């Protein structure tokens, strides 16, 4: 608990007169767009500074910004999770890190820095994965803010928080604020699990990743990217066999670059560079401090408003593009009835009578609003195909070739699960 914190050996609070002068102007009186339930004055300040517990997921480009902003806003009890260590390419924007910190865990360095700079803040870092923590860990927080760089991780935390909600216990509803950036583009959203649209509801808004057909890569390259894909996807396994490709290892990138360049020379293709090689192989997303600052600030602003009720909060999605002037779009993303995470209803799916189980699985992997990577399927009575454990996989493997219609009646239910995602998707299969 925050009230017991001692910083710099001082037994008394580390606050000083007028420390929160700016924030208190908001907390001392309501504004025109403040909910009537707002309790101006000491009570809300006490909650914010002595009781509120907030979780920040990610200590990278967004995470560093979020941590600093929350600390200045007055949150005193902040937890921070990040599974990465610091890389030199982080330093152009992840401002809590210095060249000497390269190689150290982000969560730990970030916590150290902010605690040193902002007196009285307690930042509890965890160097590890969000999946390492269970429900009771997440239940302790009032708010969760995400600055993640992975769709899988976002889906995981989203589903976890939705599953935590117990309609009998309002405290189990943990607002989730999610931010993301890419170059000059960014978005911030507020998710109230089971109440508003959740992350899974908007899965189909994601851009499809660029993939190159294998025959182009193998036989008819035209672009420098094709040569690079050939080096990483085909040539690496052939030449370096069992060795796992580490895209952070400069030697590996160097090897791929020279192989790709040689292939490009052979096919008279221009444009293979070190930078392009790294970009393709690591799927590098351009990133700058300014966009991260904007989105992180939006997220923290929402956290402040939600935690204090001092002003209306974002309902519920903010998108920003900064390439041509400033273009932004604020809208309410609607909850999806068939959302496998927060919706109740099963998704109706009409397939050909001839389709095999394997084809159905491929569809589930690729369909924009589903995108489950290694799905396991079962009817309410029996398994169809399970990806794990190995014995069950072996036992159900013959079903892959069978027609779905042999195993599931018209209008029958199929339950889809995946080990990476803490939710199941219900399908009602009909045949055309």
């Amino acid at each position, binding site marked *: 608990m925050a009230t017991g914190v001692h910083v710099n050996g001082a037994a008394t609070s580390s606050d000083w007169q007028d420390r929160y002068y700016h924030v208190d102007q908001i907390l001392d009186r309501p504004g025109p767009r403040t909910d009537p339930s707002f309790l101006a004055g000491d009570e809300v300040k006490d909650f914010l500074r002595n009781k509120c517990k907030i979780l920040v997921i990610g200590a990278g480009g967004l995470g560093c910004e979020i941590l600093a902003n929350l600390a200045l806003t007055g949150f005193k009890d902040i937890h921070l999770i990040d599974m990465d260590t610091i890389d030199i390419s982080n330093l152009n924007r992840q401002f809590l890190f210095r060249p000497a910190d390269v190689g150290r865990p982000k969560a730990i360095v970030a916590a150290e820095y902010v605690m040193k700079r902002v007196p009285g803040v307690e930042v509890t870092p965890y160097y590890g994965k969000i999946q390492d923590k269970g429900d009771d860990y997440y239940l302790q927080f009032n708010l969760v803010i995400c600055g993640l760089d992975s769709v899988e991780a976002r889906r995981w935390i989203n589903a976890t928080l939705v599953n935590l909600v117990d309609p009998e216990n309002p405290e189990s509803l943990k607002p989730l604020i999610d931010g993301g950036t890419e170059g000059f583009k960014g978005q911030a959203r507020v998710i109230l699990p089971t109440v508003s649209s959740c992350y899974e509801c908007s899965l189909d808004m994601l851009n499809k990743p660029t993939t190159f057909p294998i025959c182009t890569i193998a036989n008819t390259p035209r672009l420098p990217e094709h040569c690079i894909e050939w080096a990483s996807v085909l040539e690496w396994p052939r030449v370096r066999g069992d060795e796992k490709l580490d895209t952070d290892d400069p030697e590996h990138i160097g090897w791929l670059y020279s192989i790709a360049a040689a292939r490009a020379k052979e096919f008279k293709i221009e444009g293979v560079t070190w930078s392009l090689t790294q970009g393709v192989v690591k799927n590098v997303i*351009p990133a700058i401090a300014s966009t991260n600052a904007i989105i992180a*600030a939006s997220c923290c602003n929402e956290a402040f408003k939600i935690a204090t009720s001092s002003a209306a909060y974002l309902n519920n999605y903010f998108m920003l593009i900064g390439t041509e002037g400033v273009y932004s779009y604020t809208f309410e993303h609607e909850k999806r009835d068939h959302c496998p995470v927060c919706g109740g209803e099963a998704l109706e799916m009409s397939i050909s009578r001839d389709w095999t189980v394997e084809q159905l699985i491929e569809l589930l992997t690729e369909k924009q609003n589903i995108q489950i990577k290694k799905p396991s399927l079962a009817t309410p009575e029996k398994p169809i195909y399970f990806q794990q454990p190995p014995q069950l996989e072996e036992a159900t493997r013959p079903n892959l070739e069978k027609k779905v219609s042999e195993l599931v009646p018209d209008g029958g239910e199929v339950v889809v699960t995946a080990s990476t995602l803490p939710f199941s998707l219900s399908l009602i299969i009909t045949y055309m």
Partner: protein
Amino acid sequence: MSSQDIVTATTTIESAPDAKTRRYDRQLRLWAATGQSALESSRVLLVSGSATSTSILKNLVLPGIGHFTILDHAKVSHSDAGNNFFLEGSDSIGKYRAEEAVRLLSELNDGVEGRADTRNLENILESQPEWITSFTIIVAHNLDHALLNKLSALLWKDARYPPLVVVRSAGFLADFYIQFHEHTVIESHSETSPSLRIDKPFPALRELALSLEYDKMDPIDHGHIPYVVILVRALEDWKKTHGDSPPKSYEERQQFKKGILALKVKADEENFDEAEAQAYRCWTETKVPSEIAALFSDPALSSETMDSDRSPFFHLLAALKEYTKQSDTHTLPLTSTLPDMKSDTLNYIQLQRLYKERAQEEKQAFKSYLRIPVDDCMVDSFVKNAHALVVLRGKPWDTFDENKAALVESLSTMPKETCIHLALSALSLLQANDTSVSPSAESIRAKIQSIVGQSNKLPDEADDAIGEIARAPFSELPNTAAFLGGMVAQEVIKMITKQYVPVKGYCVIDLIETSTGTISA
């Protein structure tokens, strides 16, 4: 980099990137070495050490500007120490705000030079204005009304003086404006691509298309003809039997597309599918885009301007105007960049080579219209981006608020943003003689009314803006400061690198709804 032959280009192996390149990798992918070099040569002046100002600076120091100066004669107050990350809590109280902030900001990047100047802006404007005009760009946050007028007037005096970014905020509301005379952009990074000129094929392309003998071709080669060539040929064949015109009516276009698919010898020939999908290129006339054609009437191109007074950009634009007038096709110079398409390597590279050679010829022709020598790299970039050039012309900072007609118009088309802007203007005026004034909602409304004109009714949206300002007239919230820090730094970077398009007009921000809007553009 001038044109190299393919062999050299593909055998030059780069060595592993150095530490600086690795550090800046993620941003180099946005503005490349040229943008980075412009940043590293820049000198930025912030005329305050407020939390918003240091936030802006953070986002400029991290990407590596050359130099920054914080001009601020104030000492750190108790409240400053609580909302600014670039002060060290209560330890900083009583010290010079500029010195503390510069010290802590400089830690972010040792390639950047930072300087604290504790003089008073008022004195400098009086006695040493040339010091101010020596910077690349100046940013002023919540500057006193009278000083702001003096500063903006000074910087407007000469078109060569640096731009000024005016930033204002209170509580959850903010706006910012870039004052500049003229800003030209070659690398706007627009999403639109230049035309492949399928409707007006250059001779070598036309020849290639006409040379195809579909019935004598090997079936594998047939499936590898790039769609560009298929379309050029299909269009030529169509025109022969349709009075030299492309497909016009809906029926004709459907017929044309069916004709392409009918050329398939195997169902899976994706190049023909691609050609059918791209068939619209045959009946969409390639001409100079209207935005570019509009630039040809720019006053900077008038014959009265002397060559020596015209910047290289406008020399290039003048040459472009002349080139499009004189060329056979009356189009912009051909692009050398070909998008990917279904084909084998040989056919694709061959087509690419034809485009490159023709683009090179057209570029040479373009260059012949230049009246002064211009750096090769700039010429290359200009031609490559000719379809997406941008010229912005700005106005002095106070023009909008002085123009009642413009205000009234803006109040009806964008009431929310205009009301926020006016509320901030009212606040600035009410605090002009006494910065400790905490204005009431009534006095703010009265002031807005006087700016807009007594006879002009304020929309309902004014209530929210007025109420927010009255609630928190002195509040510099950390999240508002951080938000502005990102927004303004981004614009400064665009101005310095001359890449991407900066904001023209007042960008108004509401952090209760979390929305932005630009007025008086």
